[in-house]
């Protein structure tokens, strides 16, 4: 987010070049935003692989339709709009899949998700640090998953990525007031879900 003002001057030139078909200019634009896109997608999906797919789809879509970009908003808002739409689709599909997720019953009769028992074998995972955060992280993640995709997105952009509510509204094609109300609702739900941890 830092240097966004300065970035925009460069962006305008790069976008115009990309609109003329200059691929190098488009790749430069990608480099301005791709780390933020990956960060958002990774936090939302919890998977590097899925984040990479969202990254790929988002920038290909941007490349194909950069000619339609009319500078009515910043390029930053535009690319975030594409990414959040893809993430919303992903969250909706995930919710449907979760209903069909393989569920087993433990000896005490409690149901649990089989997939959550698969160990995290990703490279770079630090077992000691993970161990300390795992329980807390799992609780927060499952509380976040109970939000509707839109509530999740507003909360994600505001709390974890520090966007202003006005920008969240612009990105999600809605008003600041609606974004504010969605944030209230999401926070209330999360407080309810994590009440025993406070």
């Amino acid at each position: 987010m830092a240097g966004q003002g300065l970035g925009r001057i460069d962006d305008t030139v790069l976008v115009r070049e990309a609109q003329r078909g200059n691929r190098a200019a488009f790749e430069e634009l990608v480099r301005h935003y791709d780390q933020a896109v990956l960060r958002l997608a990774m936090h939302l999906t919890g998977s590097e692989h899925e984040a990479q797919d969202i990254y790929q789809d988002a920038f290909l879509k941007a490349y194909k339709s950069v000619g339609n970009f009319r500078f009515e908003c910043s390029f930053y808002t535009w690319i975030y709009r594409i990414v959040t739409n893809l993430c919303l689709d992903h969250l909706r599909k995930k919710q449907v899949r979760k209903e069909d997720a393989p569920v087993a019953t433990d000896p005490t009769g409690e149901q649990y998700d089989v997939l959550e028992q698969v160990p995290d074998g990703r490279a770079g995972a630090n077992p000691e640090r993970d161990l300390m955060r795992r329980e807390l992280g799992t609780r927060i993640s499952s509380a976040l998953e109970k939000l509707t995709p839109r509530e999740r997105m507003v909360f994600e952009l505001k709390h974890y990525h520090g966007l202003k509510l006005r920008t969240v509204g612009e990105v999600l094609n809605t008003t600041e007031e609606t974004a504010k109300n969605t944030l209230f609702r999401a926070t209330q739900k999360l407080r309810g879900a994590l009440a025993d941890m406070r």
Partner: protein
Amino acid sequence: MKCDWVKENILLYVYNELPDDARYELEQHLPRCTDCTAELKSSRKFHALLSELPVEEPSPNLVAASRMRLQEALETTKQGSFWHRLIFDPAAWLRQVRFAPALAAAIFIVGFAGGIATTYKLVGGSGSVSSMISGTPSQPAESSITGIQSISQEPGSNQVTIKYNTVSTQETQGSLNDQRIQQLLLFAARNNYNSGVRMDSVDLLTQQPNDTHVREALVYALRYDSNPGVRLKALDGLGAYVKSDPRVRDAVLEALMNDANPGVRTEALHLLDPVRADSSVRAVLQRLAENDQNQYIKAQARNMLAQLPEFD
């Protein structure tokens, strides 16, 4: 009533989203009300609890792999054409139609004025037409350059001669500080089909890596040039900026991880030595030390890691 208002707005206060006047009012109220102070404390605690789920930075490997995958896909992807836009984005088409009368009027006025001015000049016989023909060719637009034919530098000076093709081959001379020369060199570094010419232009550009455009062109050459010699030259020019410019560092890290040429990778590894303590460099070194195919790079990465102080 005041407490209800505070409780409704405390979340926005925690997220720093309250306007100044509301913020001031809330801060005035808090010291006088224990209930609202407790609510603020609880909201802040909850905010901190949720922040325990960390937002991980994507690793340099993931960023590099994603960029490469995207580049491959872009090779075969076409941008939406004008006709495509016309068919699939009728809103844009309507927007253009809305401005069409104004545009037509503007073209008419410009055409009319241009016509009058031309007639005036021809009748006046100012001689400007002949001076245009005999004078030095005007600076070519980049889009009219079809390729750079050759680049040479006069020994012991910063005078450069560049032969370039537009519709026909042209030649220009000037100092390395000349903006026109720099533009042609940047163009040659990025676009030329002849790797020898790219090598010459990158070589000359490395003499002025302080310029942002030059540095961008060197990073571009390091990332995308198909010739390892050109990539090595670009690395040479960028070496001094590995410490101070994170974008240069990222590009050198990418070269270290993904370049197909072992010589380029080795040079990149040496350049990164002064910044080996940087977290992104350290992560890449660890990966290379564990499982790089190239034994020399594997051993060097281990050595560099061994020289780092231990962190808890």
